[in-house]
């Protein structure tokens, strides 16, 4: 049977693609950290967090009431996360990637027409962030790096839980929160 392509499905697919490009398009550090230090991966996460900060500003626009308030709170948490991971890059002697302009990011995001679109994009975004930090846990070599990434992974899972709740579902729908690529 031919699978049906829904508007929501298309939006989710587009979001995954655009977020992948946000996180992976920045060049790795060219000098400073040694190979295998984790600096490249951490820099990719910083780039993804910069995109997430811009995304949450866009997500908040059509939201109202509590949903809008949580969008602001989560955006603030992403700003803190970006800074914490950027600090790890600096500790390795690297230079974390700079943020792009809001217009650069806006071009990459899916069109958000209403609250449902916004929450759908938010879910895809947070799933990707959870996955990025869990991958970081597996790949980063240093205990301090793992400590920070495990803390942020738990925070991202909670942000995702809030998105689930705002969309009207259970906050914790699955026993294993793996995120998606």
């Amino acid at each position, binding site marked *: 049977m031919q699978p049906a392509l829904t508007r929501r499905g298309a939006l989710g697919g587009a979001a995954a693609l655009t977020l992948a490009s946000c996180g992976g398009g920045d060049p790795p550090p060219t000098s400073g950290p040694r190979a295998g230090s984790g600096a490249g991966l951490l820099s990719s996460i910083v780039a993804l967090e910069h995109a997430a900060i811009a995304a949450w500003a866009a997500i908040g626009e059509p939201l109202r009431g509590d949903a809008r308030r949580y969008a602001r709170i989560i955006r603030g948490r992403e700003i803190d996360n970006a800074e914490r991971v950027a600090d790890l890059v600096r500790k390795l002697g690297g230079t974390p990637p700079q943020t792009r302009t809001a217009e650069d990011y806006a071009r990459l995001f899916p069109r958000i027409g209403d609250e449902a679109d916004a929450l759908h994009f938010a879910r895809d975004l947070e799933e990707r962030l959870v996955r990025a930090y869990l991958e970081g846990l597996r790949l980063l070599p240093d205990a301090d790096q793992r400590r920070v990434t495990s803390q942020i992974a738990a925070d991202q899972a909670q942000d995702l839980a809030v998105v689930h709740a705002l969309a009207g579902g259970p906050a914790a729908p699955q*026993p294993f929160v793996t995120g998606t690529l």
Partner: protein
Amino acid sequence: MGAAVASLALSRSALAAEPADADQLARLLALERSLAAAYEAALARDAIEPALGKLLLGHEREHVRGLEQTLGRRAPAQADTPQIALDFANRRTFAHSALELERTTVDTYRDVLTTFHNDRLLQPLGSIMACGAQHEVALRRVLGEDLL
């Protein structure tokens, strides 16, 4: 879901070479068993809304199963008694005490993940920790507190 359990179980042989990791997993298993017992008792005493209680209990049972499979014969027969007193007097008091136990469990996962040796288990353990973090949000929702 199945893949995460499989990832845990597949790493059992590697675990044999890391006794310190097995001790850490036993700590986590004790906490997960406590959570499962807590939700089971709360359901029996109507101290949690049934749909939420069944959902959270189901998750805890999956976590227990994954950790027991990973530990194999090294899994302790009984859970240690948690240092958190659970209050089943009503749904609100239970949610408060369950939230505290979930927080303790997530903090323990973070502690374990920082020093764990077996790289293959880090991601599956992280996915359980992330679920526990989401349980905190679910319980704060019951309490009418800010979700974050």
